[in-house]
């Protein structure tokens, strides 16, 4: 891992078109500004990890689970 020191207001550039700027440091909270093209997804890492595990839990339910769900939805009064 590359480690750099930056002051508030200073930036670093990743590749040709991603710029990360340190906006504010207060206690153990660092606020960053990220300028990146639309095609570059910027997400909080822990959110992405949470989403990965949620998608993995959701993926490919068994035929029985799907059939049971469909049956229960049929019986449910329409809102």
């Amino acid at each position: 891992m590359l480690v750099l020191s930056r002051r508030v207001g200073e930036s670093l550039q990743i590749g040709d078109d991603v710029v990360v700027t340190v906006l504010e440091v207060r206690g153990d909270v660092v606020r960053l500004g990220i300028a990146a093209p639309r095609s570059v997804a910027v997400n909080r890492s822990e959110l992405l990890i949470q989403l990965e595990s949620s998608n993995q839990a959701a993926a490919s339910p068994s035929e029985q689970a799907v059939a049971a769900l469909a049956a229960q939805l049929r019986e449910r009064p329409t809102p």
Partner: protein
Amino acid sequence: MSETAVLDIPVIDIVHPLPGFPEARRFALVQLDDAGVLCALRSLDDPDLRFLVVPPQHFFPDYTPEVSDDVVAELGIDSEHEVLLLVILTAGATLTDTTANLLAPVVVNTRTREAAQVILDDATFPVAAPLLG
């Protein structure tokens, strides 16, 4: 399944892979019940992979997530009428154990058939909301 039925199934291209599934880029949206509530996104890249999805308004009438301008632009959405919103279900043993991911809905441009699983800016939406909340 007959060839005609396959052609009838809308194919959806995912512009960014779903987190956890980098290889799955093309899905067929398949209706699983007559009412059109329960659907599946079936991967065309991995025949064993599918996700249960529902239009959220049937279960979460107050759910009106705001999608950022970046997503609107990337999916080429011109009007909200061409947007299909779906939420991914994690099937439990019963309906009460089944949850929906409201934090990252699947936004489909029905005109271009391009879609993305969008992580909403409002992080207060739950990733596992009980379907019958």
